[in-house]
């Protein structure tokens, strides 16, 4: 069963103008249900664009996108996915509880159900006791956890994450990575995760999609098989081997490398 299918997707911004940019070209990608897929690549490789296409926040120039067996648009309207960004993007004027309730509210869920579901999600990210706080009272890491709880609130089959841990310190980051994996495993959620960090991509993913820029495209897909992640995973040879594979794939750009300094 597939969660997301992209077929021959391309995206051109400002088509027909002097500042025309081909953000993505010829993208084919399939994400299986429950699968964790990371998108990694240099700035301008179109990984955020790809994520926004899946979320129907922008529309492709050509190609077809299917999310949960529907068109991307229908999937968005049906709230088939939850989304989180690098900034938590919480609503300052709502308490933590009411921030998490918002997607449910817009779905028309009854009050009691909203309340219970938000509580459940806040429990999941370990912030139940902060339900009555305003976002300004929380640290950056806590705000990001609220954003994740909000993204999960409608129990979406798909989670789209655009560098959600990018602005966090290393300690918080690793803790949230473990939390995210635990949540995805327990809810069976499929995830597309955009990141700049090779270790993060390898640690989290079933597959790492390596992209390159100008024009943005997928150059390689690196499968990662580390089994259930534990404390030891981050030190395991398999983890480092995965990092090396992804790094090589990133370097393997067709962009001409500098001439090797070898004597003739």
């Amino acid at each position, binding site marked *: 069963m597939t969660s997301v299918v992209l077929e021959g997707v391309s995206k051109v911004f400002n088509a027909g103008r002097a500042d025309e940019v081909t953000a993505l070209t010829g993208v084919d990608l399939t994400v299986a249900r429950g699968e964790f897929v990371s998108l990694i690549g240099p700035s301008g490789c179109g990984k955020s664009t790809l994520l926004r296409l899946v979320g129907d926040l922008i529309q492709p120039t050509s190609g077809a996108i299917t999310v949960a067996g529907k068109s991307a648009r229908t999937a968005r309207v*049906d709230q088939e996915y939850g989304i989180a960004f690098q900034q938590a993007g919480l*609503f300052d004027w709502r308490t933590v509880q009411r921030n998490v309730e*918002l997607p449910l509210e817009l779905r028309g869920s009854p009050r009691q159900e909203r309340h219970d579901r938000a509580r459940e999600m806040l429990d999941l990210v370990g912030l139940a006791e902060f339900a009555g706080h305003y976002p300004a009272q929380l640290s950056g890491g806590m705000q990001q956890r609220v954003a994740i709880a909000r993204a999960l609130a409608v129990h979406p089959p798909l989670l789209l994450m655009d560098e959600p841990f990018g602005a966090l310190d290393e300690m918080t980051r690793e803790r949230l990575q473990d939390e995210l994996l635990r949540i995805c495993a327990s809810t069976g959620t499929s995830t597309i995760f955009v990141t700049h960090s090779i270790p993060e991509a390898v640690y989290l993913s079933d597959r790492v999609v390596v992209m390159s820029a100008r024009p943005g495209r997928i150059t390689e897909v690196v499968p990662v098989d580390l089994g259930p992640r534990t404390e030891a995973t981050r030190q395991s040879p398999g983890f480092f081997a995965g990092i090396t594979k992804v790094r090589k794939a990133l370097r393997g750009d067709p962009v001409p490398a500098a001439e090797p300094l070898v004597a003739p």
Partner: protein
Amino acid sequence: MTTAVDPVVAADPAAPVVARRRHGSAFVPPLLVGVVGLLLWEAVVTLGRVAPYVLPAPSAIGEQLWQSREVVWRTGLASGGNALIGLLVGAAVGLLAAMVAARFAYLGEVSIPVAAALNALPIIALAPILNNMFDSTSSVPRRLVVAIVVFFPVFVNALRGLREVDPIHRDLMASYAARGWTVTRLVRLPAALPFVFTGLRQASSLAVIAAVVAEYFGGLQNGLGSRITSAAANTAYPRAWAFVVGACVLGLVFYLAALLLERLVMPWRRV
């Protein structure tokens, strides 16, 4: 001073420490400056033998204020009522106009410079014209002047707030398939509130000024403005000053009411 551990900080050391102002003591320094200023004023006027028509002593003004307290109260209520009605009407119209202008991008772009230019005009100068448009027992002209004066700061600030939507919030609302009025109600309006209240705070003081000054140009003479002009015309300067003090207090009351309302409406800004 208590040294109780902030629960947020205790739970997460990286949480921002919320600065808690000590409320009572914040008032002491400005109060002290005010009292010292009044004493200096009194000393300069009595020791320097300043003529009362140049500057009456605060004690003389205070005496007049006490003697005329009933008139000050009555005329203050009249001016305050005019200012309040004008403020409510002007702010409501300003807010509605901003919502309409924010809804249509082009309209918003065009109306900001126009409103800013109109705001620079001395609208109070309209008072004599408006006075002639209505009969002499009508309170409408003064209230209209107030409403027009209030409209601009509320409109300009509210529109700025309504137009600035966090791109992440926009994407989020799109991902929730929320559109139009839902987005306005849930995102645009609450996000614009700090801007709206900046406008309202400016408008609250302007409303009192407009209500008082509008009376200088005729119309119904039952407010503070008319008493200031008639006392000055009768060379009763301390009494004129007493009504000026009444107008100052009225302006302060309006400003503080706007501040209080702001804190009540936006509890998340207090944290």
